[in-house]
């Protein structure tokens, strides 16, 4: 049994955890739900010994201590699985497995991996570098490693991001087995209520750094939503705008196009997008959707093929030319890729609209404050903005006449209110005739906001599915590599 007692964790003025007390029993599956920024991950890092709490105590194994280190946590049987696996991609499977464990020979390690894999129905080649595995496989390997270290309390931070529905089902079955048969404590950190319903014996709800409630089944969805989002739960999400009838010139047409990135290349691809269309990209990490977006905007090369935009043909995809032609790219990693951390908002406006002369204060008011509700002083540095405000800033920097928006995970790290605002804005642009191509590791989000879904598998387009056919089952199967012909037959 683990008891957390009045845990506080403050980062400067931000109170990520504000006095949390919690008891975890063996053999139980808990779901820790809350919005982005509610403090779920921080609390779990405290429990895994990866962060020291500002104050509070942890009672574990009959002992009361003020903080854990990774080593102490391991000795007490606590193991944590991160959303992006915390492993060493360049190193082989067996070394990843061994690092942090008591000393053994390579052969012993290989034997242990083989035995555990057999028990849990997995397969790993010990000398393969971890970088060649999928995110799902890397998570499974981490899970095996934690079990081998004797972990009896397993924390899984958003484990279903970036894996197929099938892999998710396998993972959930495994977790269920570990809790029921081996009396492990499982804590599933998630922002998806559906996962919590499916698995949890009790749901812990966090909001703004505090544990607001613990619920037991049967769950009342309305109560849960209100507890989780508070007032933000109210609010309307716009419908996906009706697709206008296809005109003579498509917005984007790709003709036997090849793209080549630093890690891999793909092609030939043929594809047409219409004005006003929202197109979602689905696929496991590294299946090609990233290169697809980066290729269209010209950040990665187009060695062969042709691309046309509004009827104008481009044989090479020069970024600046395409940008002038109306293509805008918004990366998922906003602060790392798209903003200048130590420049202020006004300077961003100056850089984004170089043709605008004179006083930009008024422009800032209309562009950022009024249309985006970006409540920050123009002297604020980009690094001091919250994730939601960063995305608002980026969207406000996109000129109104842009015709094709390419977005990587538009709502990454945003709370529900901000996410809804972002989607309403994007849909508004589509209704005015702009096209949107986006991807998200959250399959629900892709299905909800797309007229069509392009599924990528193994660095190629596996299939293009209409809205009416785009169900979790079909898209999930395509993502896992089932051929489209087979799937379409079974649905008929």
């Amino acid at each position, binding site marked *: 049994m683990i008891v957390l007692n009045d845990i506080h964790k403050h980062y400067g003025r931000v109170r990520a955890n504000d006095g949390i007390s919690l008891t975890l029993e063996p053999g139980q599956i808990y779901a820790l739900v809350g919005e982005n920024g509610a403090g779920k991950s921080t609390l779990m890092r405290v429990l895994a010994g*990866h*962060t020291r709490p500002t104050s509070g105590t942890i009672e574990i194994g009959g002992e009361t201590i003020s903080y854990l280190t*990774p080593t102490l946590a391991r000795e007490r049987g606590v193991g944590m699985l991160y959303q992006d696996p*915390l492993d*060493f*991609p*360049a*190193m082989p499977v067996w*070394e990843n497995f061994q*690092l942090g464990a008591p000393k053994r020979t390579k052969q012993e390690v290989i034997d242990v991996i083989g035995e555990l894999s057999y028990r849990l129905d997995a397969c790993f080649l010990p000398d393969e570098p971890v970088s060649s595995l999928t995110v799902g496989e890397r998570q499974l390997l981490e899970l095996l490693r934690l079990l081998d270290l004797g972990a009896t309390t397993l924390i899984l931070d958003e484990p279903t991001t970036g894996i197929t529905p099938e892999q998710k089902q396998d993972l959930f079955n495994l977790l269920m087995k570990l809790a029921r048969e081996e009396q492990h404590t499982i804590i599933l950190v998630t922002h998806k209520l559906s996962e919590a319903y499916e698995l949890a014996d009790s749901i812990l709800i966090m909001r703004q750094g505090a544990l607001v409630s613990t619920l037991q089944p049967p769950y009342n969805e309305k109560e849960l939503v209100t507890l989780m989002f508070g007032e933000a739960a109210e609010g309307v999400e716009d419908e996906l705008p009706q697709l206008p009838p296809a005109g003579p010139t498509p917005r984007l047409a790709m003709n036997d196009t090849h793209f080549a990135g630093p890690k891999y290349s793909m092609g030939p691809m043929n594809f047409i997008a219409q004005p006003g269309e929202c197109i979602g990209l689905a696929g496991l990490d590294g299946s090609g959707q990233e290169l697809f977006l980066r290729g269209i905007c010209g950040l990665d090369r187009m060695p062969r093929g042709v691309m046309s935009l509004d009827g104008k043909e481009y044989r090479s995809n020069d970024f600046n030319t395409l940008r002038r032609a109306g293509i805008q790219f918004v990366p998922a990693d906003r602060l790392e890729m798209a903003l200048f951390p130590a420049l202020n908002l006004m300077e961003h406006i100056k850089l984004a609209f170089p043709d605008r002369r004179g006083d930009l204060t008024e422009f800032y008011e209309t562009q950022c404050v009024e249309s985006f509700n970006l409540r920050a002083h123009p002297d604020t540095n980009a690094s001091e903005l919250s994730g939601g405000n960063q995305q608002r800033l980026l969207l406000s920097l996109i000129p109104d006449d842009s015709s094709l928006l390419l977005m990587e995970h538009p709502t990454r790290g945003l709370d529900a209110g901000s996410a809804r605002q972002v989607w309403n804005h994007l849909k508004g642009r589509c209704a005015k005739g702009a096209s949107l191509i986006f991807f998200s590791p959250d399959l629900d989000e892709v299905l909800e906001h797309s007229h069509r879904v392009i599924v990528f598998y193994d660095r190629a387009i596996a299939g293009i599915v209409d809205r009416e056919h785009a169900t979790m089952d079909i898209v999930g199967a395509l993502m896992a590599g089932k051929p489209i012909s087979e799937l379409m037959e079974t649905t008929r």
Partner: protein
Amino acid sequence: METFGLTIAAILVAGAPLVLATLGETLTEKAGIINLSLDGSILLSAMVAFAIATTFDNPWLGVLGGMAVGATIAGVLGLIGIYLGQSQLAVGFVLTLLCRDLAYFLGHSFSRQPGPNLGLWHIPGIGEITLFGPIFASQSPVVYMGLAAIFACWWWMYRTEGGMRLRAVGESPRAAFGRGIRVRLVRLCYCLAGGALVGMAGAAFSLAVKPGWGRPQGCEGAGWIVLAIVIFGGWHPVRAALGAFFFAALQVSGIYLQEIFPSIPAPVFQVAPFPMMILTLLAVNMGRQGWVQDIVRRHPFLKKFSNAWSIDAPAALGQDFDPKKGL
């Protein structure tokens, strides 16, 4: 055959300090720390090694002194760069200039003085063996030190638990911390170990390869070449050592070329390794250029070569890590 053997022997000697320093820097960088102070470190440790050897009339004490100096400089870099969170590149660069000037300042009274050196080791009974004989029958100890260090580094990095941890902190300090490895301490340790090897290289210069101390000593610029060789060597000790011998071979061939083309002034040959250094780095990074990748994709059999040619740096090279901030 005889001259060939002697040429090889000359390359081995000229390459020994480069190999030692390259291995040292490879260890440090594999742990994620860039020690840019190499050029100054080598000079200062060369000076101290010579001074100690002269004062105590014992060259091996000089080697130890050189190693201590190298480790101390690396320790300063480690403390400021790892624990005080300052830019490793900036601190390393300042240390380079500082140590160079310090070497000239403190070594003033040892300048152009006669002093002991490490001499040669004679191995009886192998003189008659073809090729091997002329190379190893009577050879400087630094050559054996260099060759032993290559094997030791390779074995430590790829065959031991400690080496696994070393690579882990250089690949992903966050993940290493999550596995209970004390990232900063491990990094500091390899900083010190690498620095000691660099110091040994300095001693090898002033006590064997270019015996004596003076201004210039003759090893100016070697540290920069070593930093480039580490990149060329793809952070692998064996390949890095081959790179070091390649540059030594260039130096040796420069001496021959100078005899063949007496009209070209000597300074031209002295700076020749530096454009070579730039060209080598240019060539190593070529595999990352888009057009090269296109060719490779069209001819898959080239893939093996291009993969082996352009090796990625340790993923966390030069990034600092503060465990207090958590993951």
